[in-house]
């Protein structure tokens, strides 16, 4: 039997302390691997569906916290000014190139995103998402901005309809410089990302003035105004039209005219300073999982998933599948990252057009 000597007591205490130390140090480690992640996104845009977060937490033990932005530049501002806050950020292809250039994002380890295997190659290698052969965002969903018209009215086949006197005071425009310059470029037969003749773009947008009733900036605002019959024809998002029709039962038809839609791709990026990149990758994988996507698209309404396996899992009569026809991808121009001076020029065009509308 061991004597209770001072040395033995000391040994015992040291062992106990060591054990306790190991136990404690392993605990936060585990908690960190699961832990929480902070997602920065638009409100009500896929990542914050309660049922999905519940399933994800049950599966991985990771809690998901959200912060929201109301414009893409606000998102960039938040990334720049709050390092170490966000683990995953939803960002548009156009802004992704800018964020990568500013070293705001870290390269994605695609081995930890097994669902990315069936993601469309064109989207994965989109120049906005990659730099020096490394991918900086997991392509998530794509969609288009195009025309939406009240059901029962003649379906327009061109953006020229926006200036058609038949729609006097019945048109709503998206309060977004890039989209409007894109529309002006399509109306004047130019490239949406690099229109050489900005004066023609300005003139095309100004020609809509008698028709413009309001400028909307959030989907909620669009829904309320459309429901109140304030306009009939509008620039609108393909996914938004599906949600409005399915959830709010609004009589809206989404139209892609002959000039093609103004396409966008949203990706899931991980900020350089993310405290829990592992957890963020697991969540990104869940976001392109067919199980999540089918439920999101059928119950809520979603843009098209970048994951072809997820899109094919949708029922054939699904609204989202009907709106996001593969043939639209051929005419669709994708909004890309553009240099600062051009962005400033686009913003000035839109400010000038808005001032003209307000006169």
């Amino acid at each position: 039997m061991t004597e209770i000597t001072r040395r033995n007591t000391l040994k015992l205490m040291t062992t106990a302390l060591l054990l306790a130390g190991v136990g404690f140090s392993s605990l936060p480690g585990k908690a960190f691997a699961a832990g929480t992640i902070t997602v920065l996104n638009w409100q009500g845009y896929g990542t914050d569906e309660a049922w999905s977060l519940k399933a994800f937490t049950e599966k991985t033990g990771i809690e998901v916290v959200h912060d929201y932005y109301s414009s893409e530049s606000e998102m960039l501002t938040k990334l720049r000014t709050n390092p170490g806050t966000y683990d995953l950020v939803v960002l548009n292809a156009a802004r992704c190139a800018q964020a990568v250039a500013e070293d705001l994002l870290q390269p994605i380890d695609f081995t930890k995103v097994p669902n990315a295997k069936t993601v469309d190659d064109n989207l994965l290698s989109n120049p906005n998402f990659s730099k020096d052969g490394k991918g900086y965002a997991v392509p998530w969903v794509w969609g288009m901005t195009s025309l939406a018209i009240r059901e029962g009215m003649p379906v327009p086949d061109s953006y020229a309809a926006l200036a058609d006197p038949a729609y006097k005071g019945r048109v709503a425009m998206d309060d977004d410089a890039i989209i409007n310059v894109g529309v002006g470029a399509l109306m004047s037969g130019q490239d949406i990302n690099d229109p050489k003749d900005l004066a023609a773009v300005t003139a095309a947008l100004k020609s809509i003035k008698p028709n413009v009733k309001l400028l909307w900036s959030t989907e909620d605002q669009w829904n309320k105004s459309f429901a109140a019959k304030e306009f009939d024809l509008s620039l609108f998002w393909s996914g938004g039209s599906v949600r409005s029709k399915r959830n709010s039962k609004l009589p809206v038809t989404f139209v892609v005219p002959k000039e093609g839609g103004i396409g966008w791709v949203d990706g899931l990026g991980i900020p350089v300073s993310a405290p829990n990149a592992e957890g963020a990758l697991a969540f990104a994988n869940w976001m392109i999982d067919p199980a999540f996507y089918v439920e999101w698209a059928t119950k809520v309404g979603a843009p098209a998933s970048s994951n072809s396996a997820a899109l094919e899992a949708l029922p054939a009569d699904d609204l989202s599948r009907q709106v996001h026809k593969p043939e639209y991808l051929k005419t669709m121009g994708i909004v890309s990252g553009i240099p600062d001076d051009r962005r400033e020029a686009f913003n000035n065009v839109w400010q000038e057009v808005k001032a003209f509308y307000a006169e």
Partner: protein
Amino acid sequence: MQNDQLTLASARGPSGPRSQRSLPSWVSTTALLMPTYGWLTIAVFLPLLTMFAFSFLSATPMGKAPIVFTFKQYRAFIDQPYLVGIGITSLLIGFWTTLFCAILGFLAAVALVRSTFGKTREMLLILILLPFWTNGLVRVFSWTMVLRENGFLDSLLHMVAPEAGSIGFLYTRYAIVVGLVHGYLPYMILTCYIALSTIDDAIIAAAASLGARWWTILFKILLPLAAPGLISGAVLTFIPVIGSFMEPRILGGRVGVTMGTVIEDQFTQAFNWPLGASLSFTLLAVVLAIFATFSGVLRRGTAL
């Protein structure tokens, strides 16, 4: 001799040694003012100075774009002449809002002071302050429901005259002014109320006993005596109104483009903080110029 020493001692007694040891008066003044000015420096002057410095830069100093010192942001009104029109619109909206606030606010304050007493008056004051307890956005959005076509206003009209067209005027400048007057009226009522409540009742009783009618009392006594309240209320209303962006954006629709929305766009959409800052300071300069022009009137008003 002894007497002299005594007087000397008593002269030095209580005050002498202390005044030798104590610090000069400016030190204690500074020490007392430090907390206030220190706080003002951190909370107001430093951010403002930063923005002022930003307004001379070529791009927002975040990210990796090279930054150059430039005056070009202050040339915005020359390079983008449509901004002048927007500026004038903003000033006009500010003028009409202030005018309506002044008329309504002054009359409401007169009614409060002259016709109510004790508990009733307290109750009414609380009711006037109630809108401040709700979110401004909620107040503005509720106006959209009233003013839009087939909104509450139209429903009311159609109850009386079913065949009448729509009188909803959402997405016009009038809607913006209505929303702004609603938002800023309490400031005007409170400042006028304070000015009016200091007027001695005896003056009014004297005027009435000498045969002055109500309009004479209103324009010859109440209005001049309440001028300081009216003027400070007007300043409190005018300055925030010309920079407002929420009301124009929500109630103005297509016509809701003001200096406030342009500046907000520069900060949130275009990420061009320098231009936003320079536009803000230009606006500030214009406001100061307006107040300087009318400073004679203002001083006379407040001196009364």
